[in-house]
């Protein structure tokens, strides 16, 4: 049997799947439904002085028939009084002692305000605190959220205020709306925060209504930029997680991975790149809490297949495999191969290579047959044909030994002096 229990900076949960701070963790009712479904933990929707939201607050992009490939929101933090949220946290924690309940906090940038809310959160029995330095909309206009997260000095300052009074773990949630994620991450570490979580949402406009000309989400005759999340942001999040995990000064800084995680496969990828656990929101907003069942099941089956007994056996395994481009082997060579038995003759590989790549696919056609074949001497091994092919394992990239040893860019320059 594999053990998927998680211990994130001392916060224990039966599995590494937490609900992210967002609408699904808005109140006791939701969080308990999430726990009933099997979620290991929940980061409560950000608590602070109650705000007022606009109606019409989410919008999304579709791709083909797939809905919600990415969504954005212009919703603010909790619109419920601090004491109500804290009372519910206490109650949830009482009912679900084995689950992690972390309070996401955001108050104005004053030491007293932070000291006060941190103490009250501890009194409520939360397992940890997550500092929301990430919201890119609304709250940032009031000097909170990403307005803090984008300035490493502010991140450090506020995190210090929190850490100096907190007796429970402090996680700093980072905004991706910054040129280099390692700067605020280092600032959080400097302040003594126990962990970082990332990514928060990305500043975005999802689209424009072609009849009213108003961008989405439409609020009357206007819109506002909002925070973007969902499957489309996963690659950005993975890179940011990896860049912190592989940073020489943050090797021991635990990371909670967030950003477009919908399946156990996504979760494993985040963990391979250094996240100790993961947080999920959009997939739940799309399908409900029930998705965690396959996340748990799939993770266990995969670990069993790979021979991993506990999460730590594979967390971070891929971190060392992210290198600078300059370290890559220029003598590594792959070429595409088309399995003619599997090819359905859609021609997508051909036209992609012809128009966008290296004219490395030939097209033969007569009255009876069609045949697409790789012209190996023209193929640079870019993977594009494999990516466009609709058939599993029809186009494969095959390694060719060109009989030359490892050579990186620096060596190449040296050799060609």
């Amino acid at each position, binding site marked *: 049997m594999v053990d998927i229990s998680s211990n994130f900076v001392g916060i224990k949960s039966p599995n590494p799947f937490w609900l992210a701070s967002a609408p699904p963790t808005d109140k006791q009712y939701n969080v308990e439904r999430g726990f009933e479904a099997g979620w290991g933990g929940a980061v409560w929707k950000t608590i602070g002085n109650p705000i007022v939201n606009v109606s019409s607050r989410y919008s999304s992009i579709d791709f*083909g*028939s797939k809905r919600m490939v990415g969504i954005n929101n212009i919703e603010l933090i909790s619109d419920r009084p601090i004491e109500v949220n804290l009372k519910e946290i206490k109650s949830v924690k009482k009912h679900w002692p084995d689950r992690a309940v972390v309070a996401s906090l955001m108050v104005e940038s004053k030491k007293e305000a932070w000291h006060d809310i941190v103490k009250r959160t501890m009194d409520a029995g939360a397992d940890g605190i997550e500092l929301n330095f990430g919201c890119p909309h609304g709250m940032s206009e009031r000097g909170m959220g990403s307005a803090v997260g984008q300035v490493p000095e502010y991140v450090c300052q506020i995190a210090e205020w929190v850490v100096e009074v907190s007796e429970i773990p402090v996680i700093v949630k980072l905004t991706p709306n910054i040129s280099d994620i390692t700067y605020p991450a280092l600032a959080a570490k400097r302040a003594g925060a126990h962990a970082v979580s990332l990514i928060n949402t990305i500043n975005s406009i999802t689209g424009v209504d072609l009849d009213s000309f108003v961008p989405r989400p439409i609020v009357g005759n206007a819109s506002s930029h909002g925070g973007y999340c969902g499957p489309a942001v996963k690659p950005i999040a993975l890179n940011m997680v990896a860049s912190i995990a592989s940073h020489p000064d943050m090797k021991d800084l635990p990371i909670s991975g967030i950003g477009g995680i919908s399946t156990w496969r996504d979760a494993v990828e985040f963990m391979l790149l250094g996240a100790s656990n993961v947080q999920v929101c959009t997939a739940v907003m799309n399908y409900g809490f029930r998705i965690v069942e396959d996340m748990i099941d799939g993770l266990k089956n995969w670990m069993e297949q790979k021979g991993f007994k506990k999460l730590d056996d594979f967390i971070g395994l891929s971190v060392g495999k992210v290198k600078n481009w300059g370290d890559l082997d220029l003598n590594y060579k792959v070429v595409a191969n088309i399995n003619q038995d599997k*090819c*359905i*003759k*859609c*021609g*997508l590989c*051909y*036209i992609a290579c012809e128009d966008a790549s290296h004219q490395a696919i030939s*097209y033969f*056609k007569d009255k009876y047959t*069609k045949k697409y074949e790789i012209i190996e001497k023209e193929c640079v091994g870019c993977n594009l044909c494999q990516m466009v092919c*609709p*058939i599993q394992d029809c186009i494969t990239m095959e390694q060719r030994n060109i009989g030359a040893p490892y050579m990186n860019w620096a060596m190449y320059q040296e050799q060609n002096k």
Partner: protein
Amino acid sequence: MTRRIVPKLSKEEYEKNFSDVKPPLSKDAALLEANRCLYCYDAPCIEACPTHIDIPSFIKKIATNNLKGSARVIMESNIMGGTCARVCPVEILCEGACVYNNIKEAKPIDIGRLQRYATDYIFENNIQLFKREKDNGKKVAVIGAGPAGLSCAHKLSMLGYQVTVYEKKDKAGGLNLYGLAAYKITNEFVEKEIEYITSIGGIEIKYNQEVGKNVDIQDLLNSYDAVFIGIGLGKTPKLNIPGEELEGVYDAIQFIENLRINPLEKVSIGEVVAVIGAGNTAIDAATQAKRLGAKKVYIIYRRTQNEMPANIYEYNLALKDECEFLWLTNPTKIIGDTFVEAIECIRMELGEPDSSGRRMPIPIKNSEFLLKVDTVIKALGQISYTNFLTKIQGLELDKGRIKVNPETMQTSIPKLFAGGDCINGGKETVNAVQDGKLAALGIHKMIFS
């Protein structure tokens, strides 16, 4: 003794039995299906379509909600894209060529119904996609207002010709109106499509004008710059067996036409029906007989399923309607005093291949048997208007079909062009539309180069 006739069905039953066999897609279904299309390069569906509609392109446009553009792509290649969307044997044409057929247990794209979705949009919203060019001063006569003739007329008008269509019946549409099963297409749609085609102007249809009777083809050839002939085919050949004249023996073409031009409750059908032949028309007749309330419908064919001319879709429709195929069976006598009471058939076996390449059916001696039937529908194909065609001086025929240059549709008479069933012996609407289009281009080329 009185004929055993099926009692009239209720209005609801007729409606149900003759409702759209392929109902239109909803917007959601259309989008799901359009997004499933791979947008193949050099897509095989395009080649499989006799009019070469750029299918991936029109489907992509459905997915982007550019329905006007989608319909334009369809109708530029096939002005009867609306009819063809409903009646084309897509299983053996575009959908049969879809690359999804190469994926085990995957389903091809529902191209026919997507085409209907796009074309319905322009009909429902009265969007005219085409504009006639300035009159070029040339005149063309078109004989027959069926799919070939109307397609030719539309293309010619687009190119600036004045077109006069001579139609022997009092309505245009040809087999679209008279020859297709009522559950495939409605008269309202056929009429709407014809209105759409003719509304660009430059096309005058003269009804009740039968060339060879009240119009002379030589006069037309003399007074027009070119003539297109799209007269289709004539009657079903006779069985040449006793009893063929009895009440209750119908020609399938007439039977199908009756269902299209009369209210359904006015078409009577016997309780047990024998349809002779196993082509697509035979199946149209058999399934409709069943849908009119016949208790039992036999489809009698002298060869086997392997040789049947009906396509697989039609065959499955007949099975779904619980028609019974009697293979290797040939009628020898229709029995009755004044009306059909029974049919005598004989068992057949297959011998050596005949001139069609199919194995010749040979009667098995003393294997005659009786089937008690009340209606016999003859569906043995149609014979060409040989009498009329052979009288046209200089017109070359091949087995009763007009010989044409397959690129220009020009006949052996330079000013005379032809297309549709009268050149191919009876194919689909889509073939006729293509012929008409090619002929128009052929005429244009002849006149202006």
